[in-house]
């Protein structure tokens, strides 16, 4: 395998938090799939906004409002360009992926009726299951599950069989948060479209690793959260095809989303404002743009290649530990290792690792159906980012060995 040109030691200097100590040990941060760390450039963007041009956007005639509006709309265009989206008004700012999914699920209540079917993959995050359950309860539509195999891959033959003219919607994540599986989205989208169904892809876990091209993927909706890709919490984006966004009813009423209001009737604003009621997270939106600039400055190909090296390195080293089993062995995988050691509860391992300054996630990762599938209470999940190092992986492996000795 060729080594990448990514200079991880200089990149790490951009992230002040990585210099911290935890429990007297240097922080090893392997909980990137939950939230990524924030580079100084993004932190500065937030500070700069509040120090220089904090103002409410879109309606102000004054200078600061104009400046803030420009910066916010500029961020929208950065998102548009990053995901190769046809029109900037197809980018809706949301509070994150969960908010975006709820926006679509809520709107689809008008299009789905009794007898229709909604397909959801077996490896979804709870935030991508519950809204559809609510939709199905409300409309009488039926929720069907696309099964997965022991490797943590979707069974595509079953998916194709589940599709029919009854299928109105298909929901699937691009990358599974619990297993790291990269799903074959293009195939899923094309097959759904062939029966006239729309597809929403949860891209929250994919976006930090893969630069998805909306015009190639052709999904009808795609959602991302800024905080998983070096941006701040509380902001994300929904991409929706213009025709769908025009059809969907507004999600929330309020300022920004109206064109004209009388007591008799309200006319809704054009896209994207129809879905952006109230004052948005202005600093967060602008910082999201800065985060995309930062990651693109490093380059997604470099990031993907480097993270793949980390993943392989960690997988090989962890697999050598006696009794350790990795969950999620898909051929296409993002930099996530979910594992257990026979006879040890994942919380116990997580607790010992925490004492060693290593941050991992333990539990069901908001994907209980996956844990039920493997009949386990949860896993230990280490998720890597481009600012992690092989030396840190060595510390994780040593920590897991130490935990094993203590706990068995």
């Amino acid at each position, binding site marked *: 395998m060729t080594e990448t040109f990514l200079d991880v030691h200089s990149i790490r200097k951009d992230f002040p938090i990585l210099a911290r100590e935890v429990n007297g040990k240097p922080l090893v941060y392997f909980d990137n799939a939950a939230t990524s760390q924030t580079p100084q450039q993004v932190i500065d963007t937030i500070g700069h906004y509040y120090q220089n041009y904090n103002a409410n956007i879109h309606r102000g005639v004054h200078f600061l409002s104009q400046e803030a509006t420009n910066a916010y709309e500029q961020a929208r265009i950065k998102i548009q360009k990053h995901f190769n989206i046809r029109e900037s008004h197809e980018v809706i700012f949301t509070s994150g992926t969960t908010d975006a999914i709820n926006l679509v699920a809520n709107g689809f209540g008008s299009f789905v009726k009794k007898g229709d079917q909604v397909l959801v993959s077996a490896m979804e995050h709870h935030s991508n299951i519950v809204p559809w359950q609510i939709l199905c309860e409300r409309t009488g539509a039926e929720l069907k599950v696309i099964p997965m195999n022991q490797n943590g891959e979707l069974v595509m033959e079953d998916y194709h069989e589940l599709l029919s003219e009854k299928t109105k919607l298909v929901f699937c994540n691009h990358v599974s948060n619990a297993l790291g599986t990269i799903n074959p989205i293009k195939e899923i989208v094309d097959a759904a479209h062939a029966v006239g169904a729309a597809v929403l892809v949860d891209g929250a876990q994919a976006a930090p690793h893969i630069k998805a091209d909306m015009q190639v993927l052709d999904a009808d909706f795609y959602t991302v959260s800024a905080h998983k890709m070096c941006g701040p919490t509380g902001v994300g984006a929904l991409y929706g095809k213009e025709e769908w966004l025009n059809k969907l009813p507004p999600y929330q009423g309020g300022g920004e989303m109206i064109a004209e209001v009388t007591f008799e009737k309200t006319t809704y604003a054009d896209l994207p404002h129809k879905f952006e009621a109230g004052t948005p997270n202005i600093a967060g939106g602008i910082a999201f743009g800065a985060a995309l600039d930062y990651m693109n400055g490093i380059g997604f190909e470099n990031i993907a290649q480097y993270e793949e090296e980390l993943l392989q390195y960690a997988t090989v080293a962890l697999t050598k530990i006696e009794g350790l089993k990795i969950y999620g062995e898909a051929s296409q995988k993002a930099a996530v290792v979910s594992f257990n050691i026979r006879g040890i*509860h994942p*919380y*116990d391992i997580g*607790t010992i690792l925490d*004492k060693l300054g290593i941050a991992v996630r*333990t539990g069901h990762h908001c994907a209980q159906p996956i844990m039920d599938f493997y009949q386990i*209470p949860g896993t230990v999940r280490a998720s890597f980012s481009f600012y992690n190092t092989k030396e840190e992986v060595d510390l994780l492996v040593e920590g897991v060995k130490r935990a094993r000795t*203590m706990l068995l």
Partner: protein
Amino acid sequence: MSIQDIQDGIVDEFSLFDDWMEKYEHMIALGKSLPLIADAFKTDDNIIKGCQSKVWVHAELNDDKLIFTADSDAIITKGIIAILIRAFSNQKPQDIIDANTDFIDEIGLKEHLSPTRANGLLSMVKQLKLYAIAYQTQLN
């Protein structure tokens, strides 16, 4: 021995350990010595909510004293519940109700536990006290 005496004993015992490793190793050893709950009582009703690992607790009255048994699927959690049971089991319900729980802070258990575990710890203490209140009502 009174609850206070037992708690003081636990605090003394933990003060012997210099670092967290030894403290955790001791907790794990205590976990292995936990008076286990009978399988018949390992029901969903006996699971303590608020713990991220599963914890079952059962209480029964023996003469005028309350006896606790428990189990957990995580060994460190088992250690914590073992410490609590040592302090509160085989005591009169009213004494359990009246007992303070400062010893948890004093042995540095709370500060050494993640917030999710600390919440679970508080849920466990609350559950033991709730059992005591229930049995005290019965005794009255």
